[in-house]
């Protein structure tokens, strides 16, 4: 009987992992290799030099989140 070769039925090279769990491992600034077309599908632009331009809508959201972020409570006293 010949040996069966190749991948088993139902095998996939991809697995699902929650973004939060992956983020815990990689952190906010971890580098992740993704497909160029997938990124472009999200609205990112990639220049000829390989620079990634973040879509305006994400920049705006980031700015508004920053403004909403709670302010640190402080009191400054000047003594005479």
């Amino acid at each position: 009987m010949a040996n069966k070769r190749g991948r088993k039925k139902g095998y996939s090279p991809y697995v699902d992992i929650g973004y939060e769990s992956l983020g815990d491992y990689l952190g906010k600034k971890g580098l992740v290799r993704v497909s160029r077309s997938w990124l472009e599908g999200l609205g990112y632009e990639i220049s000829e030099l390989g620079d990634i331009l973040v879509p305006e809508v994400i920049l705006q959201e980031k700015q508004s989140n920053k403004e909403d972020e709670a302010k640190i409570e402080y009191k400054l006293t000047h003594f005479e």
Partner: protein
Amino acid sequence: MSTNLHTLNRHERYFPELIGQIAVKKKLSFYLDAFEATKLSPFLCLVGAKGLGKTEFAKAYAKNLHNDDGHGRAFLELNCSTIKNNEQFFEQIFMPVIHDNEVTILFDEAHALPKDLTMAFLTIFNTEKNHRKNFEWDGMDFEFDFKRQTFIFATTESDKIFPPLKDRLTTIDFEPYSRNELAEIIKLCTPNITFTDEVLEKVAKSVRNNPRSAVMRSKEIMLFCASKNTTEFTEDSFDELSDAIGILPYGISFTERQILDILKECGSCTLTTLSAKIGLSPSALRRDHEMYLLNKNLMEIDGKRKITAQGIKISDLAETTRIQEE
């Protein structure tokens, strides 16, 4: 003898408006003298129960620090529980207020510092001979100059401060106030009111061990005297005020009176039973009420909660107050 007098004069000179805490005053005076000579202060960590005056002492310490031009150094009070991360701290506080300025910074509730800022402080406060420290974060360089910036931390829960950070700080421990010191605080906060010694002692006995409580009681006395258009606070005045705002013996709260009543009635009971009878969570009972009753020796815990002889006395006294109220 002359040395003792010199020491006394020195710490009284630095902290003329603060009562008690002689050991704290002496230690801080030592660092203030050192600051006058070196322009450097250790990274202090004031540790003590709530209401003992940590913030007041930090402020008084800061008031004695002077800039190079002789002017008083600005004092920045931060509540650590409102700091979320490094980014927020460096953007909202460091760059606009600390950087390149002469300022004393108090990190109040230091046990609530976020993890990343705690880690940053491990590097920043790891100083040896140099009074400057550069800290790189997120591609930027932040300069700390400890001759221009003085750092003080304050907390009620020193066990929650990350130990390596605690190792870099000089701890100043606060001690409890005596009844005489509390009476002195009440007198200081009611400058135009006259008391007999007996009344003052009675009032001091009714506050909850700390200056904050004494200051609050003073405000109530001032309001009472203003409403009665008098400057004399007598024993009758105290009884009338106690009746009006519900001051119980030893300054216990109504919940604490209820705990004593239940223990007197049941003999002893578990925390769960107490919690069920009073309607407060076990942790709230333990943290907010039992600690004070234990401190005042009004109850004891020996497996179960029990009332002490002193507790029975106070419960009876509170009962008399309640009958009078009715």
